[in-house]
């Protein structure tokens, strides 16, 4: 249900012309709904919304989900340019959230494995001294 809300608002002709001009300069005057981009973004956000990512990178994940919601809202208000942009950003934000959580986990695992190896090495040295 896309209806350009800018046309509804009572506005001076100058600002209206500027608004259209800006939209023209934006490059998409009568843009279709960015369905494909939205689908990609939704899939990426869904994948990132696992418990692990939610625990490891809550802020980053929030950014992604907020932008996806913003993309949908932009579609509803007829701003397809903005909708596409927000969808593109949401896709990358979701990936960043995933990776951030993964890096935190990987670093923790690395530290634990190094500790285990060190403990084993010390045990070996103790036994050698005996």
């Amino acid at each position, binding site marked *: 249900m896309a209806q350009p809300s800018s046309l509804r608002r009572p506005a001076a002709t100058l600002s209206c012309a500027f608004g259209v001009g800006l939209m023209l*300069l934006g490059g998409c005057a009568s843009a279709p709904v960015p369905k494909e981009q939205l689908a990609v973004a939704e899939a990426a956000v869904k994948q990132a919304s696992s418990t692990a990512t939610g625990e490891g990178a809550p802020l980053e994940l929030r950014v992604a989900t907020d932008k996806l919601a913003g993309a949908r809202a932009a579609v509803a208000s007829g701003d397809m340019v903005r909708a596409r*942009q927000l969808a*593109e950003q949401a896709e*990358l934000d979701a990936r*960043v959230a995933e990776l951030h959580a993964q890096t935190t986990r990987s670093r923790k695992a690395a530290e634990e*494995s190094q500790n285990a190896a060190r403990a084993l090495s010390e045990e070996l040295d103790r036994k050698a001294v005996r």
Partner: protein
Amino acid sequence: MNARLLPPLSLLTLLVLGACASVPERNVALDQARSRLAAVKAQPQTAALAADELTQATEALRVAEAARAAGDSLSRVDHLAYLAKQRTVIAEETANSRAAQAVTASAATERDRLRLAMRTREADAAQGKLAASEQANIDKTAALAQADATAMADRDRLARREAQVDDLQGQLRELNARQTDRGLVVTLGDLLFSSGQANLQPEGQRSMVKLADFMKRNPQQRAAVEGYTDSVGSTAFNQELSDRRAHAVLDSLVQSGVPAAQLSMQAFGESRPVASNTTASGRQMNRRVEVVFASQAAGLTAK
């Protein structure tokens, strides 16, 4: 220029400039994206572990720069700059995650190596213990064999000694040795001497040979030669006679090869009679030379 027109004109200029954007202007977001990419590219770890992601980020920045150069809108350039920045972050995080995974993998390998070293050391220790216990076993077997050999040698020695004793006893029987509280006594009777004299009769010579043989064969046997007489005659005479007879026996033994160190002598005269001097047979018994072997030698008993 009319001063009253300046503010609206400048405002319009700014708006036109902002709208048309025919001259590329500085974009803060783009500058930040550019410098961030440069910094991450400089990280050797990222370049090595996330090369593809870095390429994508570089391409995204190029698109953003091109949009700015082409005079695209601020919102578009900002948007593209944001995408480039996020791709840079993705490259960096990907490299960090892979590096951490590599550390985990190498630590796991190190643990496996250490466990193997520990198992190897335990196996070597067990091998060492096995070798040690096998050696102990060998040593025990050798000690056992040694003990057996010693026992056998002891048995042989005992058998020889017993044979020797038997032999000894046989010899002693031939000598008519008598076990007394003084030790073993061989009595050389009066008949071995001529009456009142100290020369040995032929019968006496034979006894001497047997006695000398015995003593030479048993060099550890030391003997005391004791001379006795009956009570007939003076004490002084009898003392002197017993001394001469004892001497005769001693000399005979020495001449037969018995070392003098094995012999000692004592004359008792008429003292210590073994029978009554009132009868002829008693007196005859008292007239004697006794060769006494002190009973310190083991196994020296007359049967």
